[in-house]
């Protein structure tokens, strides 16, 4: 079970500034086990989606080059304090996580 994301969402001058932190190893598939010489299998988030009041605002496709424990910051104009923000990700092994937050 994936750990919940940490989300900070607050209004700054009429724009919602949102920062999401996810806990994920983001294994590239390039790193090798020094003993066996085998590469650690790739394990990374491929999709990150965000919705505000059920309307999609962000849809990111990621490669393994995003850092471990990925962070995404984005800004949504027209959102209001109290709006429901839902962020979800899915990785290449089919693991999923979904976290809700309220824009403050």
């Amino acid at each position, binding site marked *: 079970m994936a750990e919940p994301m940490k989300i900070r969402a607050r209004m700054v001058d009429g724009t919602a500034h949102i920062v999401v932190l996810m806990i994920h190893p*983001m294994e590239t598939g*390039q790193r090798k086990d020094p003993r066996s010489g*085998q590469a*650690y299998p*790739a394990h990374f988030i491929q999709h990150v989606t965000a919705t505000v009041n059920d309307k999609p605002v*962000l849809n990111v496709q990621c490669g393994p*080059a995003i*850092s471990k424990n990925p962070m995404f910051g*984005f800004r949504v104009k027209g959102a209001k304090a109290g709006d429901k923000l839902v962020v979800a990700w899915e990785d290449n092994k089919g693991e999923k996580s979904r976290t809700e937050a309220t824009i403050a």
Partner: protein
Amino acid sequence: MNHLRRLILKGGGAGGVLACALAAGLLRPTLAQAADWNKAAFESKNLADALKSIGADGAAESAEILIKAPEIAENGAVIPIEVTCRIAGAESIALLAEKNPFPLMAHAELANGTEGYLNTRFKMGQTSVVKVVVKAGGKHYIAGREIKVTIGGCGG
């Protein structure tokens, strides 16, 4: 060329390394669930192919894309980058690192009021130019910036 030869030699020696090179390919069938993940683009091994597969070849250089990132990144595994696009109506932002094994790092689609802004952290294997491609009004714009890396972050 020599670099490639070196890799192949190493591969033969360790027995399993060729498998490593193929591993990415072999593992893909399990990725089927993420149906709309742009596999071709993320597996492109050079910048030109990656740009082409996101439909951004021939993108116009633009000074309206601001890239905030360190000039020298000591740790290639965690490089912060902040992209601000002043072109109105940005629809998507793509991040690419020219010399990464797979240049395309992320491709973000923006909708319903999301501004042309993205802040994230990425990995880079070696000093390289980072390109940012923004799609706005059906057109692609590109900007680039070199980031020097002291310790690579792609493993190995």
